[in-house]
């Protein structure tokens, strides 16, 4: 186990040391202390490391993550796991806005609440929020699964493409082209597997499913006069 104290080591040094593991995996487990809300902690990691951040992290924590398993024992700022490719990012506290933005793969678990625009433009990541998620969540979501165990703010899934959305609590409002859909057996199975993978104990049957009405995919000639 390698310990890095961010009150005495710069984030840049930490990230460089993490990137150097790509050549030769000499230290698989890392513990980061005193993050004090600093930005870009463990960004761009591209090896199967296990990284524990003890405290609150700032913006873009574990951004662009590939393969690594990153746990933040605290809250995170804007854009946690943004553009993640693979691996697992787990936030023990709450996440600020744009969590998992544009992420292509991997699993993001937020055990507290997620702020606004969680999963904005997600492209294949799976996101599981144990608490509530803010407004404009899953905006422009293209692919992947988005699960919220609590409530969701306004305009969920606005301009949605193909993300499967599952919400247990209340949805304040649905965004343009997002509709409630039937929960079929294959969806229950998908959600059951996802909750298990996220280690979140919830009854899949208590969730409702939302998805794209696919009405915005093509230009409607009836609207031509508007331009």
């Amino acid at each position, binding site marked *: 186990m390698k310990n890095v104290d961010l009150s005495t080591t710069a984030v840049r040094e930490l990230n460089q040391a993490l990137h150097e593991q790509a050549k030769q995996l000499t230290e698989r487990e890392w513990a980061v202390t005193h993050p004090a809300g600093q930005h870009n902690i463990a960004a761009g990691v591209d090896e199967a490391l296990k990284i524990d951040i003890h405290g609150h992290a700032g913006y873009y924590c574990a951004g662009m993550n590939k393969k690594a398993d990153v746990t933040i024992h605290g809250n995170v700022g804007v854009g946690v796991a943004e553009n993640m490719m693979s691996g697992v990012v787990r936030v023990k506290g*709450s996440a600020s*806005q744009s969590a998992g933005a544009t992420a292509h793969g991997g699993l993001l678990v937020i055990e507290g609440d997620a702020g606004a625009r969680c999963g904005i433009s997600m492209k294949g990541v799976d996101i599981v929020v144990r608490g509530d998620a803010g407004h404009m969540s899953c905006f422009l979501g293209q692919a992947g699964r988005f699960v919220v165990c609590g409530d969701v703010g306004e305009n969920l899934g606005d301009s949605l493409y193909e993300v499967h959305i599952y919400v247990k609590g209340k949805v304040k409002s649905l965004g343009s082209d997002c509709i409630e859909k039937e929960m079929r057996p294959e969806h229950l199975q998908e959600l059951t597997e996802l909750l298990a993978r996220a280690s979140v104990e919830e009854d899949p049957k208590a969730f409702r499913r939302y998805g794209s009405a696919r009405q915005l995919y093509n230009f409607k000639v009836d609207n031509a006069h508007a331009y």
Partner: protein
Amino acid sequence: MCGIVGLYLKNKALEPKLGALFEPMLLSMTDRGPDSAGFAIYGDEVPDGTIKLTLQTQDEAFDWKTLVASLEKKLGQPIDWFQNATAAVLKTKAPEADVRTALAELAPTVHVMSVGQSIEILKGIGLPTEVTERFTLKKMKGSHIIGHTRMATESAVTMEGSHPFSTGADLCLVHNGSLSNHFLLRQDLRREGIVFETDNDSEVAAGYLTWRLRKGDTLAEALDGALQDLDGFFTFAIGTRDGFAVIRDPVACKPAVLAETDDYVAMASEYRAFATLPGIEDAKVWEPEPATLYVWERN
């Protein structure tokens, strides 16, 4: 970009340490705003019938003593005062309008930063650490304080253009964001008699609130109006005599985070501004909802 921070003490025993608790919060926002910084501190209240004015000039060698003597003569009222670096705090029973008229005549280069019974606004250009040291923030006492670190995007880096902006007696505003309709709004507000010193968009937001409050709106009504009439991005922190308020625009893309314990309520652009606060590990920490007003005030 800009950084905003606020600290409201629920526990009166912490009041002597307000400046010391707040200084690291403001300094932690330096890379969000290295151009200029400022703060509005509330405390050292004057009794009803007396007003407190904070004046500031860029001239470090300014002769405050002579100015105060001339003011006393002109106003026919004694003035209790002290100097703090490039600022001076004056306490007098003379009416505000008379003081302003006399000041404009006697010292046109002196700016009135704030007027009220509790507020003192101190601000200037330079790194936040230069500004806090200039005014010895860490030794200041008070009940609550809001501050700002500025990264100017649309108007000049000047003392007048830095935040907080006064919006009336004991009221002030700090802003993170940018307004897109400030030009037209400024013209409208000028017709209503609001005076602007800069081309700054945030000053227009402050002028807007001043105008609404002058018309008799409550703070909540004025801020509700701001949600309708201001076009752009904003997170505002508003200092009042009894506390502070926080509001974000309906899209809420400018960051804000709040923390509350039994001892205090803190707000900041980013969590790291809280890292040095006592008991923050166990604080309730959350992000304010869009278009929702949050207010903490003493009863």
